[in-house]
């Protein structure tokens, strides 16, 4: 061997050694289809840790929100899915359960159990194919939660201290506090996510609507599909939302996306936002002008009802249309992921974990994980917005009509009455018995 040849072999050996995982690969490679969310970088780091520890390969297929949904639909409807794990959103997972695309995890491994420390998020991991309903008692385990995506109140702790404000537990208190901080265009009392999207403005307003006793349907889980989006209670919730937007909010609330809202907080222009936990963003000096200044609390409620956050969490399901070895490999990753060590690493990587044990551990007392207490307090009250496969069509209605009400394109009552009629039409066409309320006058 020549000198150059020896050098090349040596460099290659060093490179291989450096890249080598601690363990040998014992599973076939897994491909996960996932969306690009604020928590994604944390998930990516945990995947890298899994590869390092086990030697098993995980490929991530990263997409925008709607793009991920389309890829998942196409994958499960094909002969063989190119993806081994689907990371499904709270708004759409029922559609995959209902159509029989997701393999019950205990059918892959009868001994598989959800770790008792892992939240079930309004029992969304259990599905009963017979009754076609979410049911923890009769349903089988269909997924493992990946991320506790739900809104918590973010507020500027430094400004609260400077102005002697108390953390709000009602919308009225939030309004008062936002009024104190409101000094546009330097500072908006609150920045809300009012733009029409796939699951955007609906996700933002539901906390207001529910805590006033309103909703979209009377009782989806109980099978009562009476449309209540034009009830006086929903109207009251929306009036509260719009009052905040008009009086102490961003002048372009109807045009604000999740990215805008996060940007407003990160640049120091928002006194409050109702956002999903993305602590790594606000405490990273390269991305934030408010490092260490943001604190967290559960979303407010009313005097009559505590805050109820809508679930926008993510669930990992394994499709039926992949070979058994790929299903086993996917389950091996999920088994590892729900463990305490992985969940801690997930939190350390900047993404909120789905483990109660970690959220309530000593980590929560450390400044960088100060969001954990608010999140742990929010999860027990958090609710699914939809448990019906028609969610995508209903969302299309609510996204448009809520946005029109916020932008002033339609008067609020007209927007809600129109939404009620359109939701009724969607549900009737899908074969549901769907009574309606009298229109708001």
């Amino acid at each position: 061997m020549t000198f150059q040849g020896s050098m090349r072999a040596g460099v290659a050996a060093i490179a291989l050694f450096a890249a080598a995982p601690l363990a040998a690969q014992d599973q076939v490679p897994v491909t996960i289809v996932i969306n690009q969310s604020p928590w994604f970088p944390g998930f990516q780091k945990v995947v890298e840790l899994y590869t390092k520890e086990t030697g098993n390969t995980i490929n991530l297929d990263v997409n925008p929100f709607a793009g991920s949904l389309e890829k998942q639909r196409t994958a499960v409807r094909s002969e063989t899915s190119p993806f081994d794990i689907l990371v499904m959103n709270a708004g759409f997972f029922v559609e995959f359960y209902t159509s029989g695309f997701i393999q019950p995890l205990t059918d892959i491994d009868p001994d598989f159990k959800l770790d008792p420390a892992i939240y079930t998020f309004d029992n969304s991991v259990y599905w009963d194919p017979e009754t076609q309903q979410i049911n923890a008692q009769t349903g089988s385990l269909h997924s493992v939660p990946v991320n506790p995506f739900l809104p918590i109140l973010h507020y500027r702790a430094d400004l609260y201290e400077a102005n002697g404000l108390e953390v709000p537990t009602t919308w009225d208190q939030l309004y008062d506090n936002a009024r104190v901080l409101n000094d546009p265009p330097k500072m908006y009392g609150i920045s809300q996510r009012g733009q029409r999207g796939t699951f955007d403005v609906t996700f933002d307003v539901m906390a207001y609507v529910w805590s006033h006793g309103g909703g979209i349907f009377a009782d989806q889980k109980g099978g009562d599909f009476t449309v209540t989006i034009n009830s006086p209670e929903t109207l009251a919730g929306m009036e509260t939302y719009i009052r905040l937007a008009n009086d102490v909010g961003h002048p372009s609330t109807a045009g604000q996306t999740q990215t805008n809202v996060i940007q407003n907080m990160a640049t120091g222009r928002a006194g409050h936002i109702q956002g999903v936990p993305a602590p790594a963003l606000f405490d990273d000096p390269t991305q934030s002008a408010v490092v260490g200044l943001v604190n967290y609390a559960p979303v407010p409620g009313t005097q009559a009802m505590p805050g109820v956050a809508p679930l926008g969490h993510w669930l990992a399901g394994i499709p039926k249309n992949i070979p058994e070895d790929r299903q086993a490999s996917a389950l091996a990753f999920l088994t590892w992921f729900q463990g305490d060590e992985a969940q801690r690493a997930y939190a350390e990587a900047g993404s909120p974990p789905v483990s109660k044990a970690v959220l309530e551990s000593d980590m929560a007392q450390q400044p960088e994980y100060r969001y954990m207490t608010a999140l742990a307090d929010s999860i027990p009250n958090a609710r699914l917005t939809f448990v019906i496969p028609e969610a995508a069509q209903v969302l299309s209605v609510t996204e448009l009509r809520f946005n029109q009400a916020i932008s002033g394109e339609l008067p609020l009552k007209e927007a809600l009455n129109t939404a009620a009629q359109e939701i009724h039409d969607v549900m009737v066409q899908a074969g549901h018995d769907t009574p309606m309320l009298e229109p708001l006058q």
Partner: protein
Amino acid sequence: MRSQTFWRNLTLAPALILFALLTLVPMINLVALSFHEVAWLNRISNWSFVGLRNYARLSGDTLFRAGIWNTVLFAVVAVALQMILGFGLALMTTQITRGRLFYRTIFILPILVPGIIIGAIWKLMYSYDFGVINQVLMLVGLTPQDWLGSSQLALLSVIVVDVWHWTPFCFLLLLASLETLPEDIYEAARTDGATGWHCFRYLTLPLMIPALTVTFVFRMILAFKVFDEIYLLTGGGPGTSTEVISFTIYRRFFTEDQTGYGAAISVATIAVIAMIIIAASRLTMKKETE
């Protein structure tokens, strides 16, 4: 002779088969789909025939109505501005004797940038809080505007982006055509005492009508397909103020998974656009023969 015709047809056959496979078959499938509803149960797709029901839904669909109206408005206003600006720039460039290549390169730059990047650039420029446009307005003492979040301004803002993006396309096509106009008729006209305006009105404009027609039709076809700029800038909102038909189809077909209804919207849209383009072409051709 018969044998020659046979061989001619035979040599055309591969192209015809390819055309049928790539164009006609998907179109037939789309039309067939528009009369069905597709549901999935136990991993099996169930197609149920619904007759004209999907088409009957169109007139009551807020997004479809807004999509058609906004698309027509967007296409007419944007393309008209692009034609005027593109033609104007092309006329000016032909007058330049030095550095023509430089100006030509500068003018076509926007068309080289992908739509998705243009969307990102303009979204930043239009940003209420951080955008350069509002910064300039505030610098001169004016009130910042909500360019993308206001129902009154959003469509106009998107049209401005489209004009910036696509004017070079018109410029390029019309410049190429202007450069081929025969110089001798201009010399003859000038000898007869024609002014610059006369030359433009009675020579350039009539001679350019075929090129203007082709450019207009090309641009209209592309304008009716606008998607990426809307997707990035406004997402169709606020409300329905920037909803365009491509976006409606995308929502109904893919996001809401209403494949049958999405197909019906697609077929109806193709029909509407075909009618508009045929009418526009006939009108222009009539003008040309006059």
